[in-house]
């Protein structure tokens, strides 16, 4: 009774009242009302489930069907070809390049991003003046569309007369081929991702930091722990669930990256030698430029499996790392 509203019980008395006054409508009203109580909960959650089934689950599963058919963008469904699309794709060097690029950009963006977000969150966690100003300040890039971010940073990282190369020139470093070199282009794209998302993740981590009981820090202070020691022995272990959340969501998003690399130059092909083509860009190229939806579906399905595997690895890994760093803290507490 205290935990859930049970409308049938609470709803009956007035309806009984009603019944005595207007006996003829009892049956219908009561039946309608009971039906209302029984069906409404399902009715209210149904939009999500129906929509998810139609535009989420079905397309994902049907991707497998498309991937084993000859399927043109304009010609539609063709013959069943078995695993031919998969073996074709696996023999393309561009496929492997796109996977390499996706993973490289993902690592180059997410690792510095999480470290930066942790540091900035620790800075914001102090007893600052004008808190809201600083918090809003780090979130500004979030409202800029990735497409716009990419156009801006595409110019900052332009090979000729770009902002970064000019700056490097002032300090005597040679121009870097941001659009020609593999690693450099990945760094440029990772910078765009971090520009937009670091502030967002900072605020998530900041919220979790503020939920850490302050007396933990006070007793650490009494034990003579430095601020750095406090950060590694209290803050990081206490952030474990939030860190796992941030890492998993950035994995799922990061491995599907499309907007930033697509807009990095005007052709959107990922460079002459496909230096920065990502897996999602490759799906687009196969499906909508080469008009081969069957092969595009094969790559989509492979990427889906890859994301699944990496998410699981990620999950167990973060769990273990976080647990390891918790242990010393626990031991210390026990000793006291």
């Amino acid at each position, binding site marked *: 009774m205290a935990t859930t509203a049970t409308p049938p019980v609470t*709803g009956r008395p007035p309806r009984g009242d009603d019944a005595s006054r207007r006996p003829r409508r009892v049956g219908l009203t009561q039946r309608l009302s009971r039906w209302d109580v029984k069906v409404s909960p399902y009715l209210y959650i149904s939009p999500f489930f129906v929509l998810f089934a139609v535009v989420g689950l079905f397309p994902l599963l049907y991707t497998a069907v498309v991937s084993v058919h000859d399927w043109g963008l304009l010609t539609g469904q063709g013959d069943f070809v078995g695993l031919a699309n998969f073996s074709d794709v696996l023999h393309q060097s561009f496929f492997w390049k796109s996977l390499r690029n996706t993973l490289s950009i993902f690592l180059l963006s997410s690792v510095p991003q999480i470290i930066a977000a942790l540091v900035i969150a620790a800075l914001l966690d*102090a*007893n600052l003046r004008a808190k809201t100003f600083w918090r809003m300040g780090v979130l500004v890039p979030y409202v800029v569309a990735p497409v716009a971010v990419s156009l801006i940073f595409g110019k900052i990282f332009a090979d000729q007369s770009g902002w970064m190369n000019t700056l490097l020139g002032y300090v005597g470093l040679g121009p870097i081929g941001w659009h020609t070199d593999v690693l450099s282009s990945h760094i440029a794209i990772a910078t765009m991702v971090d*520009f937009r998302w670091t502030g967002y993740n900072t605020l998530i981590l900041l919220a979790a930091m503020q939920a850490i009981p302050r007396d933990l820090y006070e007793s650490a202070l009494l034990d003579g722990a430095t601020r750095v020691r406090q950060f590694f022995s209290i803050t990081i272990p206490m952030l474990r669930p939030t860190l796992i959340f941030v890492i998993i969501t950035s994995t799922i998003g990061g491995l599907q990256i499309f*907007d930033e690399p697509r807009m990095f130059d005007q*052709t959107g092909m990922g460079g002459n030698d496909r230096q920065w083509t990502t897996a999602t860009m490759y799906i687009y190229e196969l499906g909508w430029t080469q008009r081969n939806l069957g092969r595009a*579906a094969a790559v989509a399905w492979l990427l889906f499996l890859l994301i699944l595997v990496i998410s699981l690895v990620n999950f167990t890994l973060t769990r273990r790392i976080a647990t390891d760093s918790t242990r010393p803290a626990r031991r210390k507490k026990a000793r006291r």
Partner: protein
Amino acid sequence: MTSVPAVRQTAGAGAARYAARRAHVSIGSERRPRWLTYTLLTLVILASAYPLYYAFLLASSTSAGIVQHPIPSLIPEGHFIENVSRVLGADIKFWQAVLNSVIVSVVTAVSVVLFSTLAGFSFAKLRFRGRGPLLVFVIATTAIPTQLGVVPLFIVMKNLHWVGQLQAVVVPGLVTAFGVFWMTQYLQSALPYELIEAARVDGASMFRTFWNIALPAARPAAAMLGLFTFVQSWTNFFWPMIILGSTNPTLPVALQLLQGTYFKDMSLIMAGVVLSVIPLLLVFLGAGRQLVAGIMQGAVKG
């Protein structure tokens, strides 16, 4: 001493904020940070603001000027209006793109808020068989990379003859798992059972109870969800590009066209970038506080 989350549960968000502020003050040992913290934070803020200002500087100069001064001086030149009018005259259907972006973002935001609150009300406050597992299912779907279903989704839209039509972008986003989860979390603590029971005793139907009791109670969380959804659909690119193309673009798609057509004319492209960013910057100035609070609350609860 009651904890801040406990206050949030019992007395609402406002009281929780007050308690948090008081808790901060009462810890005497925590001094104001020194200048180093402020210096570092200032650098962070500059790093997040400079690229936008840089875009404005380029949008205020000429292509020749950009080649001469790759690092523009901090004082803008006077060509901004001229460049903006060139964007408006460019062959990218700019006004149509703005209109499309507004339609898509507003419809999506309103619909997500409405359907998510409805589902959140049901999950948080109504009793039905399978409630727990269904909620777990909703949360689990947030980990599914649905973007990878583009190929069949495109085939479906093609068969519906929706290619190039706004509903092809709007319909897949009408309700999100994140929204349902978010509203469930909020309504669990913000909507007392007594209110629902009172409405039921007065003979209100389920939907009436939702409309008159749950929806008003959900207003703060609904506003945040609406904001996030708006930002998300305004900045969305991948699916609109595939399904709408250049014939009926949203703003990000139009920006791509601008880049593809006028890629040598940097001041023109940057003027387009600035134009596309301004609406959301205005939203941010008005409601940035709510965005910050939304992210931070979502983090604690999620």
